[in-house]
């Protein structure tokens, strides 16, 4: 009841119903975004886009004086097209850019944005190099260190003897695997890393090596959606004597459980929301309701990331517009003043534009629900351990 009431209220706000007076004096500000809408990362790009759209509706409804709208361009996951997109967006009047997916895209695109003096924010690029460039207009809410910290905390708490990491040779999974290998080895845990080419489809030979040679307590998957399915399927067939399957992005999501109920039970992945959504914050509840209303599905991991980055940007724009500094390059300063609790926890930006507070919780699939199991402060339940999908 309450949820549907909120949903319809949000819808009403979003449609601008009941706000005729405000429209007369509203100021419209445009921001730009480039996302991979085609190619192998298209799904991620579309989910980002959804979170962004919801954020703008809510942000605009909350502060009707300054209306923020977004132009989205498909960057096709190619750096040159992302750079072109930034230039096009800047020349058509965007005051800031929301970045795409992958450090290879975000690196050159944020360089271009910096040259044009436009604030650039991303939730899809985790490489450490990005924040070492000294850009004044670059911001991001998540980073490799945060993923690493979230997963390492869980793994170290479980005190395993040995962990096997299966890592895609793509950029972000490689970085994460390297970081985890270091963290776990420092705690005296035996770590074996198995790198795989993303073109691979049969994971049985890798799992069999893990089963017969490594004999770990935990298998950690540093990979993407389609890899998880292949890996867990292979593990289900070979049944290695492990106590837990852990993964990272886009794994502990309701969607994965709906699509692959036989594979996901007891699997752990990075998450920040339990499911059914027991969002403690008012904002999280509104987001979930509005998302359900617009896209007829439960909120997803990437949508939440882009919701948070877009909300922060939108609010900074509104502050700058109110203060009259938006046209005078005041947006970056307003961004740097950000200090706010979000669905990702507290967000601040340091001098490099990074969010030093970023650390993820870990969620476990449990019979269609997702229980937050780590870190202890955020947990909504105890971890099932040992527990595997088979």
């Amino acid at each position, binding site marked *: 009841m309450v949820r549907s009431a909120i949903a319809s209220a949000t819808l009403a706000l979003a449609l601008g119903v009941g706000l005729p007076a405000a429209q007369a004096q509203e100021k419209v500000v445009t921001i730009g975004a480039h996302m991979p809408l*085609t*190619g*192998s990362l*298209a*799904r991620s790009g*579309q989910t980002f886009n959804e979170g962004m759209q919801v954020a703008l509706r809510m942000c605009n409804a909350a502060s009707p004086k300054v209306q923020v709208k977004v132009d989205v361009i498909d960057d096709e996951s190619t750096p040159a097209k992302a750079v072109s997109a930034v230039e096009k967006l800047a020349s058509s009047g965007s005051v800031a850019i929301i970045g795409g997916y992958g450090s290879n895209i975000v690196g050159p695109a944020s360089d271009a944005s910096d040259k044009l003096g436009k604030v650039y924010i991303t939730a899809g690029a985790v490489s450490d190099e990005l924040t070492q460039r000294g850009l004044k207009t670059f911001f991001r809410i998540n980073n490799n260190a945060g993923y690493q910290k979230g997963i390492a905390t869980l793994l170290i708490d479980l005190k395993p003897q040995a962990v096997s990491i299966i890592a895609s*040779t793509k950029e972000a999974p490689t970085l994460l695997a390297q970081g985890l290998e270091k963290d776990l080895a420092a705690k005296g845990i035996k770590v074996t890393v*198995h*790198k*795989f*080419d993303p*073109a*691979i*489809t*049969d994971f*049985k*030979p*890798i799992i*069999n*090596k893990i089963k*017969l*040679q490594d004999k770990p307590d935990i298998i950690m998957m540093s990979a993407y*959606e*389609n890899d998880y*399915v*292949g890996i867990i*399927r292979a593990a*289900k*067939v*070979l*049944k290695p004597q492990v106590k837990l399957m852990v993964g990272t992005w886009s794994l502990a999501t309701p969607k994965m459980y709906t*699509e*692959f*109920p*036989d*594979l996901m039970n007891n699997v752990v992945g990075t998450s920040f929301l339990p499911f059914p959504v027991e969002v403690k914050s008012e904002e999280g509840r509104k987001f979930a309701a509005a998302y359900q209303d617009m896209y007829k599905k439960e909120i997803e991991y990437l949508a939440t990331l882009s919701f948070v980055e877009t909300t922060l940007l939108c609010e900074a724009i509104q502050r700058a517009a109110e203060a009259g500094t938006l046209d005078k390059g005041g947006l970056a300063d307003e961004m740097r003043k950000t200090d706010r609790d979000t669905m990702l926890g507290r967000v601040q930006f340091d001098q490099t534009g990074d969010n030093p507070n970023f650390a993820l919780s870990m969620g476990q699939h449990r019979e269609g629900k997702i229980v937050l199991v780590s870190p202890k402060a955020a947990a909504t339940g105890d971890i099932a351990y040992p527990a595997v999908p088979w």
Partner: protein
Amino acid sequence: MTELILQALFSGVLIGSVYALVALGLALAFGAMRIINLAHGELVLLAAYMAYLVESRTGLEPYAAIPLALAVVSAVSIALFMLVNMIRDHRELNSLILTFAIGIILTNAILLAFASDMRTTTSAFLQDAVSFGDVYAMRGEIIAFALSLVLMGLLWWWLKASWYGRAVRAVSSNRGAAMLMGINPTRIETVSFLVAGALASFAGVALYTMSVVQPAVGHALTVKAFIITVLAGVGSIPGVFLGAVLLGVTEALTVTLASSALQELAGMVLFLMVLFLMPNGLFGARARRG
């Protein structure tokens, strides 16, 4: 170690049998017309999406999609042949570019129709584990393996025993002579593409039951099919099967003995070695050098 290698060999043979299904259609069209159909992987992909469509809409097992896949993919395959047949000059080069273009069209059509989400079967029956002593497989893989053997047997018999089959072989070995014998090459080539489309249908459904599909994988399937055709040499059905299994086993052993990051590398190196050192393929009879 023995156990590891046994499992690698077993997995390699199973995955190889599906590679063989993917490659057969390409090899057949190539044998009949000297045309590499660079959209073949997309035909397979199209069939896989038909399986997804049927499974997600009706809740039936993916193999129930075979009739639909056969109808759709064969129709597309025939349409593709008719376009290729319109080429007048520089047939070899222009057909490569044309079929490549059709591959781009199909990939994007699938993207527009089905979005970019990854798809694979959710059937518990097909995903269950079965074991033979110390080696394990998914039930879907065993079924695909059996299907591949049966289809290959049928194709072999068809090429050897039926009038059409002999006509296909006659056209592929000497088009001019076949015409003199009263065989209409266009009709025979149409039949080859029809059969290639049918094989792609089965391959696609089988692939959907044991692997993850996305709109972008069509091109990789074509490349794999071509590699197998090269390993096999032209005009040998058992060769295609053995070539495919060799590729599957090489990949699995690379993972077991070295690193899974090198799996693709091993396949490519095998391809080049056979190409350079055994110009007729491992099992074929005809030369491929210009």
